[in-house]
């Protein structure tokens, strides 16, 4: 190959690798940017007076007097709305029946939207569900509700050849000339006085219990459940994994059986995680009766099976990478094989083994399928350590899925879902960071 061609080849290779790196970082950015920007919305938002009332009444947090005086202030701002509403209801009684019929359905809709925005209307019976006791706690959601009050969403079906088109119809026009007419501009102009949005840093999202199945409150049970499951899986998988790796690399004679064993382990690494989940249900719960119901223990055991191959393979490679001279020196000094493994081989291979552990830890924390049937539930209390033996727990990966698909009010609580995603990503990052730091310290110590 002449020099010119070689140069060209070299350059193109360089540019391709640079492009790959750029593409990778772009992909990462596209993935992480919304996770962070939306996820932070669960922590940083403009909280309304309803948020502070909820914090005081449900978590006993905040200044009772300040909240009481705020309730008075927003109450005064809201009063004209309720007055106009009841004035209109009086007016409605005097109308002829056809006109009344037209307004009835609209009025019912407005009242239920007002309830969602500002909490129960005055003089109504006390609701039981928290979502009906409080108005919107977040300013962004409050704006959405306001828009729904101002404009009714209707569908124009006049073109019969295609699907209908959405038309926003001003409710003020619908109620023009009635006593409800002035309520709409009043709401539009005075919403901030009715809810008093203030910048809120809700760090307790991490440590609060969920209220009314995630309508309000935080995600502590899910976080704790994820930590339990991950640590439990590591506790079960690490000893078995390392022992298996030691056997494979040091003691197993290279026969057909051992190579079959290796093939099996590699295959195990490729089994889909849902299969592990079903196996966990069938084996740990229905056959072994590890616990009477789903439990953190059964979930951890299932996750441990899932990550076992990774740990075995990584540890085996690390053990093989230890120079032969180490082992020979130890053995020639009269150490028994076991002693050699424990005092020479394992410490030397520890950084490599830890790498495998780190990789599998992130995997265990984020897996959903293995815990669906063995450990995860949608609602539950945070568990005490000894309760993990027998009780199931909410866990971040499962509850993200649950909120995204099964929850009754998916659109109302997107921020909780995003907050959970961000927390899970950060949790995995944190676990990895801790493990990386430990590994760095160990290898530094090893070097002397």
């Amino acid at each position: 190959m002449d020099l010119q061609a070689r140069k060209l080849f070299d350059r193109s290779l360089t540019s391709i690798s640079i492009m790959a790196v750029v593409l990778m970082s772009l992909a990462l950015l596209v993935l992480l940017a919304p996770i962070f920007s939306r996820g932070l919305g669960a922590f940083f938002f403009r909280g309304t007076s309803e948020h502070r009332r909820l914090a005081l009444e449900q978590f006993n947090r905040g200044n009772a007097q300040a909240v009481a005086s705020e309730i008075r202030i927003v109450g005064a701002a809201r009063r004209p709305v309720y007055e106009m509403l009841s004035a209109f209801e009086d007016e409605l009684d005097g109308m002829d029946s056809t006109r009344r019929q037209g307004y009835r359905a609209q009025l019912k809709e407005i009242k239920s939207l007002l309830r969602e925005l500002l909490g129960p209307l005055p003089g109504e019976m006390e609701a039981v569900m928290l979502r009906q006791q409080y108005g919107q706690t977040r300013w962004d959601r409050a704006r959405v509700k306001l828009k729904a009050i101002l404009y009714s969403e209707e569908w124009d079906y006049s073109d019969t050849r295609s699907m209908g088109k959405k038309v926003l119809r001003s409710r003020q026009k619908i109620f023009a000339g009635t006593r409800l007419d002035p309520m709409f501009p009043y709401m539009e102009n005075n919403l901030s006085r009715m809810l008093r949005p203030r910048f809120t840093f809700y760090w307790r999202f991490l440590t609060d219990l969920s209220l009314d199945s995630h309508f309000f409150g935080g995600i502590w049970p899910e976080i704790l459940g994820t930590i339990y499951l991950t640590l439990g899986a590591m506790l079960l998988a690490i000893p078995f994994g390392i022992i298996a790796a030691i056997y494979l690399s040091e003691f197993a004679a290279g026969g057909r059986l051992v190579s079959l064993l290796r093939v099996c382990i590699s295959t195990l690494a490729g089994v889909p995680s849902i299969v592990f989940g079903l196996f966990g249900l069938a084996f740990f719960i229905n056959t072994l009766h590890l616990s009477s119901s789903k439990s953190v223990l059964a979930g951890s055991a299932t996750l441990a099976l899932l990550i076992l191959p990774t740990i075995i393979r990584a540890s085996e490679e690390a053990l093989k990478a230890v120079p032969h001279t180490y082992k020979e020196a130890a053995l020639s000094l009269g150490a028994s094989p076991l002693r050699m493994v424990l005092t020479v081989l394992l410490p030397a291979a520890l950084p490599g083994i830890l790498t495998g552990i780190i990789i599998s830890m992130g995997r265990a924390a984020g897996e959903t399928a293995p815990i669906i049937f063995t450990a995860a539930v949608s609602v539950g209390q945070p568990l005490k350590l000894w309760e993990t033996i027998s009780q199931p727990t909410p866990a971040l990966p499962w509850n993200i899925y649950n909120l995204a698909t099964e929850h009754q009010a998916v659109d109302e609580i997107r921020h909780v879902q995003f907050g959970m995603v961000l927390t899970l990503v950060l949790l995995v990052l944190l676990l990895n960071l801790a493990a990386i730091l430990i590994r760095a310290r160990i290898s530094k110590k090893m070097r002397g």
Partner: protein
Amino acid sequence: MKILSAILTLAFLAGGLGFAADSSKIVADGSTTVGPIAKAFAEFYMKQNPGVNITVSESGSGNGAKSLVNKSCDVATMSRLLKLNEYEAAVHSEILPVVHVVALDGIAMIVHPSNPVAKLSMAQVKDIYLGKIRNWSQLGGPNAPIVIISRDTNSGTYETFEGKVMKGEKIAKNCEYVGSNGAIRQRVQSTTSALGYVGIGFLDSTVKALPIDNVIPSAETVKNGSYPIARPLYMVTNDYPKMGSHLYRYINLYLSKKGQTMIEEIGFIPVTSY
């Protein structure tokens, strides 16, 4: 060795404590339709009785029944009755299923709000799901193929739909099966030509519920029996719970005024005699 024995001791200790605390734990598993009720009751009960842990999972009525038979849950929340073979399996594993009807529900046929079709008849719904009616234009709508969506076969809502609407006939092959009420609603929200069905508590303004045989699905029409696709929602326990136990008080919340208000607020219909 020392570490291993320490871990074992700890595990046994923890195990012992765990079993001692077992009476204050209730595990509910099953229907995604009954899920919101079970969750609301659980949070209400746990607030009044701190120290009790009630966990609720939503994996489908079929899973609830299986868990009950395998003794891995205390309450199976179900949107259909147990099938004969499930009763048989229960009896074989010495379980006596006791059924509590906690609420009533109608299965609403939902379409995207942009869909101009305003009503359907039972026969039309059946024909659509049989694959005989394939286009909205056959129902007075625009020219768009109907995307039919159904719950998976593990679901009690599916069983009810199959029994009441399909009358045992097979759903067309091109039907799309999804795993929960919420998932059907999301599928219909995002697909203008879709048709699906959900429990009445899952209706909201993002989808349009169609009247069936000129009857709109609502609390009144379900209760008086005029809405044709209605059914009770159940909680099933092994034997009647011991009086006064946490399980007894949790299950019977639906009889209390607050319990019935909660069911109403969630969007289902409480069982009352008035």
